[in-house]
C-alpha cells in the first residue's frame, strides 16, 4: 500500500501542483497567464473527451455499460441531497445548496489526473467512464437549485433570486443552459461525440495533440491550479470565520464527504463487477468535487451563495486531498473490495 502512495508522489503532475502551491505561499510572482490557463483547461477536456469517444467507438455498448452510466447518474443525484441536509445543520440554504451541488458533481481534472495514475499503474480502463464523467457533471446543479427552492426560496433576498425579475420563479430555460450547455460540459460531450464518430482513424490524425503531450500539459495546468488553490485557502478561512466560525465544519465536510462518496463509488463499482481500473476511476469520480463547471453555473443560478466557501473547499481542500492521498487510498480500497 505504501508503494501506491510513493508512486503517486513521484508523479510530475502532482509535484507541479505542490510547486505552484509553494510559489503562492512564498508569495512568488509566478503565474500562468489567465487566458492560457483557461485554454489548458479546455485542452484537457477536449483531449479526455476525444480519447473517451474513440475508446467508446471500439467497445460495444451493452447492458453493462448502460448500468454503469445509470449508476453514475444516480450517484450524482443522491449525493447532493444528503450533502444538502448535512450542510443545512450549519449553513443557510444558498450556501448549503451551492456546496451540495459542488460535491454532487465531479471534477474533470481530478478524473484526468486519475487516468494518468491508472495508466502509470498499467491498469486498463474503458472509454465509457468518460461518458460517465460527462453525465455526472450537470445533475447536481439542477438538484442543488431545486433543493434551494424547496427550502429557502420563500425568504428575503431569495425572492428575487432567479431571472432577476423579482418574481421568485425559476427560469428553467437559463438554468438548463447553465447546467447542460456549460462550456466545459459541452466540450467534453462534443469531443466525445467527435472521437466516437471518427474512431481510431480520427485518433491517428490528432493523437500527437490529444495523447502525447497530455501529461506534460497537465503538469503546467496543475502548476497554475496549485497557485490558485493556495491563494484561495486563506480566503476560505476568512469567509468561514465571517460566516460564524464554520471553518472546522467546512474542512471536515471537504475531507470526509469525499471519503464517504468514494466508498459509495467503490461499492457500486464492485457490485457492477467492474475491473480494477474502471472501478478506481468511478470511485475517483464519486469522491471528486467540481471547481470549474459548477462554480460558473452557481454564480448565475445562485448568486447569493458565497463563492469564497464552495470554490476553496473543492479547489483548495478536496482537490489536493484527492490528488495526494485520495487516489492511492481509493486504489487500495478498490483492490481490497475486488480481491476474491
Amino acid at each position: 500500500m505504501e508503494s501506491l502512495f510513493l508512486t503517486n508522489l513521484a508523479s510530475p503532475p502532482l509535484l507541479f501542483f505542490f510547486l505552484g502551491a509553494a510559489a503562492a505561499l512564498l508569495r512568488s510572482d509566478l503565474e500562468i497567464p489567465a487566458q492560457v490557463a483557461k485554454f489548458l483547461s479546455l485542452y484537457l477536456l477536449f483531449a479526455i473527451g476525444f480519447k473517451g469517444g474513440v475508446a467508446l467507438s471500439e467497445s460495444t455498448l451493452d447492458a453493462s455499460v448502460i448500468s454503469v452510466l445509470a449508476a453514475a447518474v444516480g450517484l450524482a443525484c443522491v449525493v447532493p441531497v444528503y450533502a444538502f441536509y448535512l450542510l443545512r445543520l450549519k449553513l443557510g440554504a444558498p450556501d448549503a445548496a451551492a456546496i451540495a451541488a459542488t460535491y454532487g458533481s465531479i471534477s474533470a481534472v481530478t478524473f484526468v489526473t486519475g487516468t494518468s495514475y491508472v495508466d502509470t499503474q498499467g491498469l486498463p480502463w474503458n472509454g465509457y467512464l468518460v461518458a460517465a464523467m460527462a453525465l455526472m457533471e450537470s445533475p447536481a446543479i439542477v438538484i442543488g437549485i431545486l433543493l434551494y427552492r424547496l427550502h429557502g426560496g420563500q425568504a428575503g433576498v431569495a425572492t428575487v433570486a432567479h431571472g432577476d425579475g423579482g418574481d421568485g420563479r425559476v427560469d428553467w430555460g437559463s438554468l438548463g443552459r447553465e447546467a447542460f450547455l456549460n462550456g466545459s460540459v459541452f466540450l467534453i460531450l462534443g469531443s466525445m461525440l467527435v472521437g466516437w464518430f471518427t474512431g481510431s482513424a480520427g485518433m491517428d490524425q490528432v493523437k500527437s495533440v490529444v495523447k502525447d503531450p497530455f501529461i506534460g500539459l497537465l503538469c503546467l495546468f496543475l502548476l497554475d491550479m496549485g497557485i490558485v488553490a493556495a491563494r484561495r485557502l486563506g480566503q476560505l478561512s476568512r469567509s468561514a470565520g465571517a460566516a460564524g466560525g464554520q471553518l472546522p465544519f467546512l474542512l471536515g465536510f471537504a475531507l470526509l464527504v469525499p471519503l464517504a462518496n468514494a466508498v459509495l463509488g467503490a461499492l457500486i463499482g464492485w457490485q457492477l463487477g467492474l475491473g480494477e481500473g474502471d472501478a478506481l476511476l468511478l470511485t475517483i469520480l464519486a469522491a471528486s468535487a467540481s471547481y470549474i463547471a459548477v462554480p460558473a453555473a452557481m454564480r448565475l443560478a445562485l448568486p447569493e451563495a458565497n463563492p469564497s466557501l464552495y470554490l476553496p473547499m473543492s479547489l483548495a481542500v478536496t482537490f489536493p486531498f484527492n490528488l495526494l492521498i485520495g487516489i492511492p487510498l481509493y486504489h487500495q480500497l478498490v483492490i481490497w473490495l475486488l480481491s476474491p
Partner: protein
Amino acid sequence: MKPCKRIEIVIEQTLERRLAERLDELGAPGYSVIHGVSGRGDRGLREADEVTGTFTNCIFLIACNDDAVVTRLVEGVRPILSRAGGICLVSEALWLRH
C-alpha cells in the same frame, strides 16, 4: 458635444452576459466591456486568476444622454449588484457627436 452620463459598473465576469442582456432590455444606447479586471471590495480579493471567471471582474462603461434611461438603468442593475456584488458609479461627461 452634448452632455451625458457615464455609468461604470464593476461586476463579476460570469455575469457579463446577463448584465448585457439586462442593459439591452432597459434601453441602454450602447456599452463597452473591459475584461480580465481584478480587484478588492466587500467580498475580499478577486485576483482574476482562475478559469471559471468567478474571481474575475469586468467593467461596463455606458454613455447615456437621456436622464430617464439613466435612472432606469441604475435602478435596473441595482438588484443584480445587491445580490451578486460589484459597484456602480455615475459621472458627468460630454459626448462628441460625430
